[in-house]
């Protein structure tokens, strides 16, 4: 269509279109400041990146960047401190919640969280996890559950689904010989020490928004000294599930979410 055949209205529309709207006044979404510019080492499509970004967004919104201390685990997210511009401490495998306990007790005014995968939190760190929750430490535990050992190459984790293939269960997890998947989130929700226990995902825009709300609430409860908050985020592991990122999100929805249903498992009572 050339200029001459345009109606006035079309011409006006074109004028609007030609003018770029990419100016600061019009920004509706930008990466949070607390997230560094370092390119992440995670595989394409891995949910860790979204979980990191949500933590950073919440820290920015609550304006607690200088008061937050994170504890990184062993696993794929061992380098989380490269991406979150806050004070961070690395813990020995599975011990992140115990380290977080120590930090919070010495520095009770800080916002303390641990960030752990399923191999870290629900296998080698089961003891620490249960006792930290049972003591009701005033911290946030972020639990990334993708049902597999990511960093070490896709071995079976306690959270691996029945029938799910991994390098150590090549024919699928057989519950008779390998036991049932551990729903550690439901388990710790039983303990009187936990205040808020919820399960989220980051596979769709709606779930991303909900996960962010859960993290934000947890930091707010921590400010009010309410006790332990536990946020499980069910994620994908495209590399070790041996799928494309899109296939992995579909598989997550069809297999992980029916077994690990989303929603609050323990709602705050007071």
């Amino acid at each position, binding site marked *: 269509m050339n200029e001459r055949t345009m109606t006035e209205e079309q011409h006006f529309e074109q004028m609007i279109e030609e003018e770029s709207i990419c100016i600061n006044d019009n920004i509706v979404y*930008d990466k949070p400041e607390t997230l560094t510019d370092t390119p992440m080492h995670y595989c394409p499509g891995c949910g860790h990146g979204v979980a990191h970004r949500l933590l950073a967004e919440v820290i920015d919104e609550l304006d607690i960047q200088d008061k937050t201390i994170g504890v990184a685990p062993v696993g794929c997210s061992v380098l989380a401190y490269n991406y979150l511009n806050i004070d961070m401490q690395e813990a020995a495998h599975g011990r992140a919640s115990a380290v977080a306990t120590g930090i919070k007790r010495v520095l009770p005014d800080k916002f303390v969280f641990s960030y752990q995968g399923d191999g870290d939190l629900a296998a080698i760190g089961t003891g620490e996890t249960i006792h930290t929750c049972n003591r009701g430490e005033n911290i946030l535990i972020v639990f990334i559950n993708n049902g597999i050992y990511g960093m070490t190459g896709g071995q079976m984790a306690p959270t691996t689904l029945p029938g799910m293939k991994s390098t150590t269960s090549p024919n699928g997890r057989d519950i008779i010989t390998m036991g049932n998947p551990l729903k550690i989130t439901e388990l710790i929700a039983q303990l009187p020490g936990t205040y808020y226990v919820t399960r989220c995902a980051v596979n769709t825009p709606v779930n991303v928004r909900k996960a962010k709300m859960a993290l934000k609430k947890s930091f707010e409860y921590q400010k009010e000294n309410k006790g332990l908050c536990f946020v499980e985020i069910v994620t994908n592991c495209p590399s070790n599930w041996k799928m494309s990122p899109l296939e992995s999100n579909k598989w997550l929805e069809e297999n992980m979410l029916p077994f690990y249903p989303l929603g609050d498992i323990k709602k705050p009572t007071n």
Partner: protein
Amino acid sequence: MAKVKGDIIIDIEKCKGCELCKAACPQESLELSRKLNTKGYHYIVKIEDNCTGCTNCALVCPEGIIKVYRKTEKKKEQVATISNVTGDITVTVNS
């Protein structure tokens, strides 16, 4: 009537071509490039000019590399059309 117009800027060098943003876009505005970035990934480009600035793509992007802009344009009310002008029209152009 207000017109909503969105736009996005993608840091293509950090894109890993996972296509999660493409799947999340209700307007189907996004597509993988044929070219590779320096990391060796096909990156995401905007192929349509119909973005509404809904932020879905930015929310699901694991790399946090999508910036979203949105502007609501109020259409100017039409005061006169050529057909119903009766007298002379003087046009002054300030350059």
